[in-house]
């Protein structure tokens, strides 16, 4: 019996194929559709008109603004809820803290549509449904994406070398200064990781906004969907996708998400 031997190159082939089929080709197709348009005779021509149309349409710009606002508020609320929880859990010596963490993470294991439908019923029960569309959408986003904020924060804070905190206290820092000058700055990789995990889907996850606002709130993801399905305009849909991609890329750049992780607080990039 001879053993099977694969070289590193050979092992790469399936992944390269996967990348080509599901990342590179689709991206090229989106780029192609975004910068082309159908002429009167049905022929495809290169054009910037989709781009121009997007930024001259008040409706589309207001959708962009709406998505942005909802995403920012949802992300901020997630951070405000998740940070103290992750901090307390990470710093406690409680042996069963994993159980508590699990309870917060568990919703992730339940089907997403089912969760949102259940939330809709709950909001209906307390009379919010149909009256508070923005609030409901934000509640839905926070509920849905909170685990994605908790996990990276918890991992970062857990792995944070306690000697940094001891050093800060040793040098005269009280609990507050230790937190503001050492703990929080060192947990930034987790914060950024959490923000990206929550912010991006909050801009696009229109199942949440549709279900909880009775189709009254349109976010960017919904707009893309409408162009591809309802209007059958792949060119505009592709252009919006690219604009969204650029926005997310710029957000990451602004928060420093691409910076190399030099400090010891590793494990933040869990995803």
């Amino acid at each position, binding site marked *: 019996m001879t053993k099977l031997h694969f070289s590193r190159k050979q092992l790469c082939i399936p992944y390269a194929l996967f990348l080509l089929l599901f990342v590179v080709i689709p991206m090229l197709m989106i780029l192609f559709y975004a910068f082309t348009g159908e002429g009167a005779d049905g022929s495809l021509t290169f054009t910037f008109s989709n781009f121009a149309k997007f930024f001259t349409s008040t409706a589309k710009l207001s959708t962009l603004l709406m998505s942005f606002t909802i995403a920012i508020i949802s992300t901020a609320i997630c951070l405000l809820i998740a940070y103290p929880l992750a901090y307390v859990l990470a710093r406690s010596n409680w042996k069963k803290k994993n159980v508590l963490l699990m309870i917060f993470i568990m919703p992730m294991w339940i089907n997403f549509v089912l969760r949102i439908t259940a939330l809709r019923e709950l909001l209906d029960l307390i009379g919010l449904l149909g009256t508070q569309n923005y609030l409901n959408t934000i509640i839905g986003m926070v509920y849905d994406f909170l685990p994605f904020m908790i996990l990276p924060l918890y991992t970062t804070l857990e792995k944070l*070398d306690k*000697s940094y905190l*001891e*050093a*800060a206290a*040793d*040098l*005269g820092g*009280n609990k507050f200064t230790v937190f503001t000058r050492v703990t929080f700055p*060192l947990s930034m990789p987790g914060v950024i990781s959490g923000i990206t995990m929550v912010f991006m889907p909050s801009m696009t996850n229109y199942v949440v906004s549709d279900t909880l606002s009775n189709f009254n709130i349109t976010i960017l993801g919904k707009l893309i969907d409408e162009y591809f399905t309802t209007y059958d305009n792949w060119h505009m849909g592709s252009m919006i996708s690219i604009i969204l991609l650029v926005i997310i890329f710029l957000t990451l750049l602004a928060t420093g998400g691409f910076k190399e992780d030099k400090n010891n607080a590793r494990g933040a990039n869990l995803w």
Partner: protein
Amino acid sequence: MAEMKKAKLSPEPKGETSPLKKEEKIIEIVGVSKIFDDTAAVDNVSLYVRKGEFITFLGPSGCGKTTTLRMIAGFDIPTSGKILLNGKDITDLPPNKRPVNTVFQRYALFPHYNIYDNVAFGLKLKKIPVTYVNDKGETYTKMQKLTRKEIDEKVKNALAVVDLEGFEKRSVSTLSGGQQQRVAIARAIVNEPEILLLDEPLGALDLKMRKEMQIELKEMHKKLGITFIYVTHDQEEALTMSDTIVVMKDGQIQQIGTPTSIYNEPANAFVANFIGDSNLFNGTMVGAKLVRFCNHNFKCLDDFEKNEKVDVVVRPEDIKMTNADEGMLKGQVISVVFKGVHYEITVKVGKTEVVIQNTESRNVGDTIGLDILPDGIHIMKKAFTENKYDGYITKKNTVVFGDGEFECDVTQLYPGSHLDEEGYLITAEGEQLDLTDTDVKVEVGFQSIEISDNAEEGGAQGHIVSIIYKGDHYQVIVRTEENEEDYVLDTEDLWNENDFVGVKIAPENIRLTLKQEIKQK
């Protein structure tokens, strides 16, 4: 100097004033214990640190040295006991309120700050009293932060002390291990602490760097004039740098002394073995300053009771090689290893292996003689941890040992057994056993024995023959008259030598094992 240091563990000597004045002590640790999850990391440690000295806590990992340091820093709070700083109780004070700074094992430099901000961290938080004169000519003081200029100056000075001028703007990750180490030291000393704590600060450096830093740290200590408390497991480092060494093991202090006194007069076999290479022999005192080991009687300088079993330590460099028939011992060379300056030669003498260091070499297989001069022989009392006796069970289910008779729990010999009304032991399987005259081994811990003035109260009676102060308690030895059996016990009460006392042991503290079972193994 050595004599002064040796007095450290003992209480104020009776009838004479302590040679050390109270104000010289900067840190005093009084009966401190730290228990983590039921195990004592530090077990009833008492010591003090004199102002300005370089003191090293030395011991293997898990000996409690780092925990002791962390309690001085304030990171861990003692389970019991007190820590005094300049006579004031600081046991429960948080780290930021203590005039103490730490150099951490892995430096713990803040990765999100550059070198300047790391060093300035403590200064930026510091508030100092500043005196002002107001319009009416009255003076008043205000606590205020250091100015930017003052901070700049201090940071610059601190970086100069550690030879890192011009590194202010560099980021931590661009520095080598040795440079990070220096920044960590600068960050601590810039705050002008009364005590600098160093937790194995050189552990992560390579050998050459470590040697250099040892010398630099020692020079820094002289220059700064503050107290250094240093933790290491490296005996050579401790011997090189310290004024005083505290040797620890299993959370307890084994010996406190100067490097010379610890090396030359180790208090017990552990210290001897830990500090430098050594040969350890089981010996017996056979006369006045005469000890027998390796089937030879050696003259020595220490005097112990005749027939006492002792530990004998001989340093490899203290053994001289002679011609085969001229030495006190005779043996065969079984290995020779060149160690740079000297050869390490292992010689088999009878059944014992003896290690020698010498600049001269011998060939493997050579038969040579060995000489040991009296000043090369260090004799130490055997460290007991337990009283052990041979005994037997009586008809009444008591146990006779050590010239006495004690009530005991015989059911421990057979798990799950109990006694019936007639005093027979019924095993878990229902078997009936008569234990009368069963030979047993008896073990009793030092803490389990009580002594009483009323001699008749005890299961055995004897005179107190020895009282040794062990830092926080006395170790007392009671010797019976009939067979000279010894009971070693720990007590907090002070007794007098020659007191006639009764020895009391609670039945549950007498551990019995069957002798036959041991033989069967």
